[in-house]
């Protein structure tokens, strides 16, 4: 467990010192959302209708932007093979890296969301539901994305391949995330949506680090 925190500490320290990387992801998130009022017009009712969905899609794309570097830098400088040779399971190592990814992007996206929700005229009933679904959904985005990030190791044009691999897997999270918000706004029960989102997270927690570690072992065998 100490080793897990050692790794989390190091990665957090590195991401603090390269602060611009994370700032750029948040800037992308904000800009992508801001583009929509320009595209569909500033009609408050239209914005209120599409706001939650737009914010969710933008969050999903921003989370994916930073995924490419999740294992790539460690792979290129030999750190990853050395991490695989430490007396701890590679799955734990992978889980530590996913945790840091969520702390530096998922959390930051959630922090930026209230401002964007006001901007997109999201109804007050859906406001907290938006934050709650993102809190439940973004960890799953980091977890599932890690499988893609591990699979593209060693390939050229990894970024495009990554989005092709990962985006289809994000669809269920998107559906139930936005579904919960729509249900809250129109006064329908939200419990089932949230339970499915939670269920996806609980399933991804053990499965994704395991699958990513497998893909990394494969990449190191070359």
């Amino acid at each position, binding site marked *: 467990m*100490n*080793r897990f925190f*050692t*790794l989390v500490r*190091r990665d957090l*320290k*590195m991401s603090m*010192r*390269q602060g611009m990387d994370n700032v750029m992801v948040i800037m992308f998130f904000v800009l992508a959302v801001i583009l929509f009022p320009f595209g569909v017009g500033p009609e408050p009712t239209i914005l209120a209708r599409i706001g939650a969905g737009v914010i969710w899609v933008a969050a999903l794309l921003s989370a994916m932007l930073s995924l490419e570097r999740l294992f790539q830098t*460690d792979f*290129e*400088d*030999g*750190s990853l*093979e*050395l*991490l*695989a*040779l*430490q*007396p*701890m*399971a590679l799955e734990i190592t992978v889980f530590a890296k996913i945790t840091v990814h969520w702390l530096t992007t998922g959390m930051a996206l959630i922090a930026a969301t209230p401002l964007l929700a006001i901007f997109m005229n999201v109804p007050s009933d859906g406001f907290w539901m938006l934050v709650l679904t993102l809190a439940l959904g973004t960890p799953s985005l980091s977890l599932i994305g890690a499988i893609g990030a591990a699979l593209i190791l060693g390939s050229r044009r990894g970024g495009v391949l990554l989005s092709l691999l990962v985006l289809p897997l994000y669809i269920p999270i998107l559906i139930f995330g936005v579904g919960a918000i729509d249900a809250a706004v129109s006064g329908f029960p939200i419990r089932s949506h949230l339970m499915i989102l939670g269920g996806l997270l609980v399933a991804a927690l053990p499965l994704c680090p395991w699958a990513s570690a497998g893909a990394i072992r494969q990449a*190191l*065998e070359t």
Partner: protein
Amino acid sequence: MLYGVSTMSLFTGTDLLCFRGERVVFTDLAFAINAGDALVLRGHNGSGKSTLLRLLAGLLKAQKGDISWNGENILDEPEQHNQRLHYVGHLDPIKPVLTVRENISFWSELRGHENDVDAALAAFGIMFLCDVPGRFLSAGQKRRVNLARIIASPAPLWLLDEPTTALDTDAILALERAIATHRQSGGMVIASTHTDIGLDSAKTLNLDDFTPTEYAA
């Protein structure tokens, strides 16, 4: 014994066969070393020195044959095997944004030892670099840091792939001293090299001897 390795401890490979792609790299390869031994791998480019070292580290799996430590296959308990080995590959995993000290102490903390970073830095004459971020290091300095990393946390088995790359004569001397100390305290060293490094009574394994005849140069 510093490493808690009994004098009986034995690192062996038997009947190893490995192919990369369609090509057989080596076949029927065998070796055995004891505590305090050094094994130097020699052979042409492409004769499989790096491949063998990656097999011994457990990064690759041999298509045939066993690698065992004290008679126990290394693949049975990979984490135990990781605990007893240090691997130095072609790349130096030095993070550009972390200082030299942070880089080294990260790796020794992962191994769960109380670490002696200062002594390791001093052994390679890079004490003055300890607060310098990795991005300002030259290739030779990076290699020195990478080698200091393996001294900072003790492990009985050193697997060194061309460790002298980019090193100047002073650093090679420091490496020879480090290896000698390591062996005196019961450690083992397996190193591939093209240049001569002074290793007393080292065994040599020439990988060209194990290349299948149809591929021999």
